[in-house]
């Protein structure tokens, strides 16, 4: 019996999340709320919005795999892209654009991609080895229009779509 664990898609998704979480931590990145109190930026994984998530936040998930071109004829090695959606949601208008600029600047040079394996002694910290370097292409970058009756998660929202390229 084989229990399937981390595959390339989840490896890339989690590598990107871990990369941004590290950057937020090392820079102590915060945004102000309406009362002028500093709030730490959170990075979450998942397509579905969770009402328990704390703003401001960066939501990341793998959405599709648009490219899987053969590197050369006769080889099964492929140059693959993994398209991720990065939804940015903030407390105040304008912050979403600033945070999007920050995200784009941070991931512009690419992201180290890790191969994760479960760590039974500490499930929150899977063991990892470097798989390669993921190059980043930006596909779209624009605010998601606000709506009159939208709740706080959708009042100030920005979406970045990016392809992460890796050989394999």
């Amino acid at each position, binding site marked *: 019996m084989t229990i399937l664990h981390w595959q390339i898609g989840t490896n890339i998704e989690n590598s990107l999340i871990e990369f941004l979480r590290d950057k937020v931590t090392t820079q102590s990145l915060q945004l102000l709320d309406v009362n002028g109190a500093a709030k730490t930026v959170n990075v979450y994984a998942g397509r579905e919005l969770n009402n328990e998530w704390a703003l401001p936040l960066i939501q990341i998930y793998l*959405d*599709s795999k*648009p490219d899987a071109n053969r590197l050369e004829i006769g080889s099964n090695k492929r140059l693959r*892209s993994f398209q991720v959606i990065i939804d940015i949601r903030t407390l105040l208008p304008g912050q979403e654009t600033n945070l999007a600029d920050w995200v784009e600047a941070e991931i512009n040079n690419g992201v180290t991609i890790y191969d994760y394996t479960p760590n039974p002694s500490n499930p929150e910290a899977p063991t990892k080895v470097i798989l390669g370097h993921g190059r980043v*292409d930006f*596909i*779209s970058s624009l605010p*998601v229009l606000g709506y009159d009756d*939208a709740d706080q998660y959708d009042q100030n929202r920005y979406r970045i*779509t990016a392809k992460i390229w890796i050989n394999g």
Partner: protein
Amino acid sequence: MAIVSIASKDNQPLSAKIVAITTDLSEKHTKILADAHKKELDKSIEDTRERTMKPVGDHLKDQIQVEKIAESGFSGVVNSGYGVGNIAILNIKAKWWRWLNYGIAGTGRRIPPGTKENPRITGHFVPGTKGIFTKGQPKFPIDPKKAIKAHNYIEKALGVMISKVRELLK
């Protein structure tokens, strides 16, 4: 010394001829890309479909069309290319376009609404069963609590098209 003279058959300036040819080629090229983008959008919508297509009424795919774009320029109205999907039309005939893509309706809602008469929706909306959402009997009343997920069909199509365009330009 030999001098070679090149002239058009109708004695029109060559520069005008070249501009006319390249403009025509450029327009055809843009049209091909717009048509390909429309196909990718259709495919993305189908690939992310969670329920069967309703038999009647307006469908999102049908409302996304390739349109020639005309803009005002210094020399009058000029054709500036082709657009895929007219938001003004989508906002009337397929208002759910943004809900499906971004997971939020134009009203700001993420969960299907009730009706004025009956806030608890009478209908059938269970993605897992690929059911069609309909109001009224003989369906059983339900009260949807699950938000519609973002399908990102616009981004999916863009991701494929950008690679296609690069291949074409190589």
